[in-house]
């Protein structure tokens, strides 16, 4: 369980995030949605201890993210930021192998190599495993990054806009992979998404944010309501019933 108590972050007098209070249960996919500047990424980064919070406490699996040793947290929690531009020229396999760092400190064991191969195969990167990252397309590269964080085999996986810059086919493929990772490997995935319909189709829970506050948190059906979404996005949004559940029209 991810438990956030009174977490706050002040960027400036006008830009304040929090106080946030939320308990994200174990297993499944939880999506964070909301307009730009609502504090979705800030929240995710604070959980992932990449951003220092000004006040409050966040615990992941009963470990306080601000006091627990970084290496211990690295076995429980992983986070992938939105933009990953590496100057370092690594092959896909080398990159994914870094996911094993918290366990083997870079000296990969036979067991590690098996786990690396497992995630490379899972993300359909087998053919590309010895290609350099700068020789891949955007979608392939994104898959390699997500394969790296999953290779860390942590219970909790945080992803900041993993669908950014992906076309529809790649985005669907990515969400299918995440769905399978949540089900087959029992991971708890928290993901920031911009597209409400992706959130509705693939997540178990949705957390909607606005003006640095949590506006609503619940199951997909509880959140996918026209008044609620119209209010959060300040745009007229209607909900119709599609073949796979509710669909937002805007």
């Amino acid at each position, binding site marked *: 369980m991810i438990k956030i108590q009174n977490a706050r972050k002040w960027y400036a007098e006008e830009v304040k995030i929090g106080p946030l209070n939320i308990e994200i249960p174990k297993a499944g996919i939880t999506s964070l949605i909301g307009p730009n500047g609502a504090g979705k990424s800030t929240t995710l980064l604070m959980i992932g201890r990449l951003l220092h919070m000004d006040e409050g406490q966040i615990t992941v699996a009963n470990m306080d993210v601000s006091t627990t040793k*970084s290496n211990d947290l*690295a076995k429980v929690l992983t986070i992938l930021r939105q933009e990953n531009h590496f*100057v370092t020229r690594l092959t896909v396999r*080398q990159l994914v192998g*870094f996911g094993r760092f918290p366990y083997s400190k870079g000296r990969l064991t036979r067991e590690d190599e*098996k786990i690396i*191969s497992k995630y490379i195969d899972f993300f359909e990167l087998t053919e590309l495993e010895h290609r350099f990252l700068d*020789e891949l397309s955007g979608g392939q590269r994104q898959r390699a990054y997500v394969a790296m964080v999953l290779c*860390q085999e942590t219970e909790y996986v945080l992803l900041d806009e993993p669908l950014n810059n992906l076309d529809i086919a790649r985005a669907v493929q990515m969400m299918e992979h995440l769905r399978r990772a949540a089900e087959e490997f029992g991971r708890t995935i928290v993901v920031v998404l911009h597209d409400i319909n992706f959130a509705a189709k693939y997540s178990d829970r949705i957390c909607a944010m606005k003006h640095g506050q949590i506006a609503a948190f619940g199951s997909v059906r509880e959140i996918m309501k026209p008044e609620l979404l119209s209010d959060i996005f300040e745009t007229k949004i209607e909900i119709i019933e599609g073949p796979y559940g509710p669909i937002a029209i805007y």
Partner: protein
Amino acid sequence: MPMNVTPEVESISQPQFSEQNPEQQSNKKQKIWTIPFIIAVIIVIGLGIVSLFTGVYDIWNQEDGLDMFFITRIPRTVALMLTGAAMAMTGLITHLVTQNKMVEPTTIGTTEWAGLGLVFVYLLIPSPSLVTRMTGAILFSFVGTMIFFFFLRNVKLRSSLIVPIIGIMLGSVISAFSTFMTLYFRMSQSVENWFIGSFAPIQVGRYEYLWVIVIVTIIIFLYANRLTLAGLGEDVATTLGVNYNRLILLANALIAVAVGIVAAVVGNVPFLGLIVPNIVSMIRGDDLRTNLPWTCVMGMGTITFCDILARVVNMPFEMPVSTILGTLGAIVFILILLRQRKSRRLR
């Protein structure tokens, strides 16, 4: 982008093989003594031998030829090798920690700070010993490199050109200050030679501290994996449970020690840290553990070659090796720039 597949990478590119035999694969990946590497080592040893027998003094026919051989030729060649390895490796580490391939210790101001350290030592102590000079150079290099990193973390514009520009600016300011100090205190004679790195004055008793570089090299090898992580940036390093700040501190200390020693013993050795790691990275990618031996050997080879050239070009006079390195470095720098722009256009 041209594909440069080394034979060892080729042989493990079959997926079925890698799945069935993960251990064998990992052994292969870690393998350093490949045939191209052995050839490279042989070439460098050859260059070393050429360096031993290049010079104006006729060591075959003069009576004290053998003595001269041990007093100047061997020290000079050893110094070349150690300096080459040191500058190439610190260049590589600088690339990783700044996440920028256009910088190296002489373009982020480290060398200029080492120079300032030397000036201060000369100023405070009348005739300083080599150890005192070295300590001054190392301390100032460390402070200077830290200042550069502090700048870098607070300047959000991390475009690949801004970083070296900041470094070169910082370096120029420091070097201007050093020049002012030397002129003001009328000590230009003892310091001005320093800015032109040359291996000509190297002889027994003047170069032995360069051996400390071997220790630095061992530490770099031990921390190779962590330093590669530094190249992926603070966020990824933190996510993988590494203390990024401590890592940067360690990297800076290693850079400062190596550059400080080289600065005190040899002088300014520009561009080596830029040329060598970039060439190695273009061909082999950036896995630090397997690249380090290559970087060392290429560094040794490049500087030895340049020094032999410096001795031969204008015989019986000798050019400072930094002049040749500077010329070569500028060409490679431009090539890297053009190549970067081309790949961006293709995307």
